[in-house]
């Protein structure tokens, strides 16, 4: 089955057509190698980095932003978001702190992307 994508590798935005030619993934419409790589990846296993933010108990800020440390399969994004929504985080949090080891069985960690200090230290 042929699929069509707009390449996101650069501003040109080539319209790619990608199909499976007896086990080999073929790309047309690209004008450079990056389009070829993007087309194959998007056709075979589209991946996305998920970012969100979670409430922090006694944080100096209400929320701490988070991301998956690795991209996750596109079709698992909603599951990963659900796992992130269930997180309970307590201040202090440092950038890079692992908040969840394995997001919804994807193997990707969820890490903090912002520093949130304990507000009780400042009152």
């Amino acid at each position: 089955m042929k699929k069509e994508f707009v390449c996101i590798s650069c501003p040109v935005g080539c319209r790619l057509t990608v199909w499976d030619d007896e086990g080999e993934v073929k790309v047309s419409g690209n004008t450079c190698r990056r389009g070829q790589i993007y087309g194959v990846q998007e056709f075979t296993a589209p991946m996305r980095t998920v970012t969100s933010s979670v409430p922090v108990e006694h944080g100096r800020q209400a929320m701490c932003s988070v991301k998956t440390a690795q991209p996750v399969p596109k079709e698992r994004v909603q599951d990963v978001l659900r796992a992130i929504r269930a997180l309970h985080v307590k201040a202090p949090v440092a950038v890079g702190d692992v908040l969840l080891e394995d997001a919804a069985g994807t193997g990707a960690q969820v890490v903090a992307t912002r520093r949130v200090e304990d507000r009780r230290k400042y009152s």
Partner: protein
Amino acid sequence: MVRNVEVAIIGGGPAGLAAALAAHKAGAKNVLILERDSFPGGILQQCIHNGFGLHYFGQELTGPEYAQRFIDEVEKIDSIEILLDTMALEVTPDRRITAVSPEHGLVQVQAGAVVLAMGCRERTRGALNIPGTRPAGVYTAGCAQRLVNMEGMMPGRRVVILGSGDIGLIMARRMVWEGAKVEMVCELMPYSSGLNRNIVQCLEDNGIPLHFNTTVVEVHGRERVEGVTIAQVDPATRKPKMETARYVECDTLLLSVGLIPENELTQGTGAAMDRVTSGAVVDAARQTTAEGIFACGNVLHVHDLVDNVSAEAQIAGQSAAKYAQGRLDKAETVDVTPCGAVRYVVPQRLVKGEGEAALYFRVGSAVKPARLTVKCGDAVLKTLKKPVMTPGEMEKVVIDLAKVDGDVTVCAEEG
């Protein structure tokens, strides 16, 4: 009491932080940053999505991570001080700053050099004059972004977005990911000013329709938004074709309809302004026409990549330190003017001399394929070809200053 500092910086966002570090590295004995929010980092703190830093750090970071790298650096340096919750009210031509803060009351600063790094703000419903009632539920996209990502509040459940700039696209995905239904994104123009990447990953991934040549012609609802009327526009005149009007039920309208450099303080310095960028006129050192007052980042011209803001702020910070120590030579300048499809160029002036200067510019409409020519009189300084130039992407060209002996033009044409 008046505090004396070598370099004062208005704004502790990406531009202000990078300028402070550069001023310190260039030998400034003390640097003071005035920031109105309760923490440094500026707008990056609410831009929790990734994609920042590919050019500057060579890796993909989220906004808060990008900011934290600069905050960590600044915190290591004792001679850089940040006053938080501090709002600058005035900058005079002789570099006297008046600010207020709950902790320090009235703050007066006399600076050897000033770097303006106040950033920009969003255009609102008032700027568009959308007819209809005035209910709750109409937000700028950036305001909604702060509510969702930093305050943990949802502005609404059923959303229409007007404007397909990057913030609007990013917020379309963000609202869906937090459980809202995004009915559509309407774009007045026949193209989006947002990145392809965001159209694909924010809209297409989530099945959100993008309607070009379409705008909101009326807002409905008394207390709360109940719906909007949308209509197609004539691509030539951009006037709505009322026979195409239709009602869309929603409780929230998000606006992503442009950014305006926040230059009220700049005007008090008497610096000449560029009517196209809505920022100050600067030379390659990012000095405005008000001596010793520099500008960088989104207050100078709206950038699409923070990486470019950091690079520009380094120039401004370094120049400010040099000026404060009497090491920035005064020299005659030449004008840099846009022509053809080029809408503006920053810097708008150049000092003749040695070395190279990077000119940043934007085209007014898409040029495909594009040929760029930089000229000084009849002499061609540089030519450049690109498969496409679009209004949404800032372009850069580097020229050799030794060849500049008069006014410079930067011209983009099809071909």
